[in-house]
């Protein structure tokens, strides 16, 4: 029997803290492309119930809506302690925009979880607490490194990470 080759996406599920910022950014775009229908269904459930649990790699994410803001807490599967709710996103927008915002929030949360709670693999993960990029990929300020949305909008098109994205789509 022949062993199936591991795809680049499957390898990303095991890299955890070894994922570079560029790879995380490409993963965010890839997840938005490939899981849009799942995210849309999840957004509808979350808007209806104000609560949603999702499992990604070796992590569990619990989304909640409070005061028209979505947040998440997460933990490693079989762990008792949840990380604190750090990411929050306002949902003070019309309903169709809420769904779009939630799709982006879900993709960002899943990238956060992939880098913190990966599937077991060849690489021993370094120690350290829960870690994320403080400015999320769905915020234009990410691309300007916190120096304004307009600058971020212009810079967004400069760094496309297309090479990694192509690898994710094809390998």
């Amino acid at each position, binding site marked *: 029997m022949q062993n199936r080759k591991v795809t680049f996406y499957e390898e990303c599920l095991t890299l955890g803290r070894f994922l570079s910022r560029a790879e995380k950014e490409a993963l965010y775009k890839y997840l938005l492309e490939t899981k849009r229908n799942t995210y849309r269904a999840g957004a509808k459930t979350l808007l209806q119930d104000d609560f949603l649990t999702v499992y990604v790699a070796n992590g569990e994410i619990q989304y909640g809506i409070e005061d028209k803001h979505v947040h998440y807490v997460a933990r490693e599967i079989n762990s008792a302690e949840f990380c604190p709710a750090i990411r929050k996103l306002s949902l003070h927008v019309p309903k169709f925009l809420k769904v779009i915002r939630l799709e982006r929030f879900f993709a960002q949360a899943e990238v956060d979880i992939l880098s913190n709670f990966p599937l077991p693999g060849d690489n021993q993960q370094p120690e*350290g*607490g829960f*870690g994320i990029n403080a400015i999320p990929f769905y915020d234009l300020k990410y691309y300007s*490194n916190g120096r304004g949305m307009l600058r971020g909008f212009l810079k967004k098109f400069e760094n496309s990470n297309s090479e990694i994205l192509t690898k994710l789509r094809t390998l």
Partner: protein
Amino acid sequence: MSISLPLKQVFKFKVPGVLALAIFAGQFLVNELPKVKEPLCKIDVERPHTSTYLKQRKNLEILKLNVTTECTVPQEFTILNADIQAIVDNVQISVQRFDNELRVPDEKGRFKAKYRDLQVDCDSLEPTMYFGQAQAEIHLKNGEVEKLSGDSQYFVSQDCKIDAK
């Protein structure tokens, strides 16, 4: 023979008005001026060093920068901006930046936030001199924010060359 103490003279001693005012003002300044606060946190930036990891079944060399922030009171999280500097062709340049990296202290204690995944792939194994520096914004549980910076003190040679981006 009786000894008489000059008690009357002692009680009659007067502090000149201007001097009294100066003493009063001095006392006020000492007590009321904002005191220089003792820092609650410190930052430790280790020297950049190489490590190996597996990617697509290849042994890849990476250069790592370990940073730790530690406080005497519990912290919520730390946001870090760091960079690895190198000497290339006798010029000091930044070869890798790590911007807005947020870490939550691990469960053993809420006092230390550890950065153990600030890393960059080596482009070749050519020896190069490296130095690390970082600026941290520490959000404490009590709502205060501490800002501090640190560096790895001196350049060290590592068998890893990173092409500046």
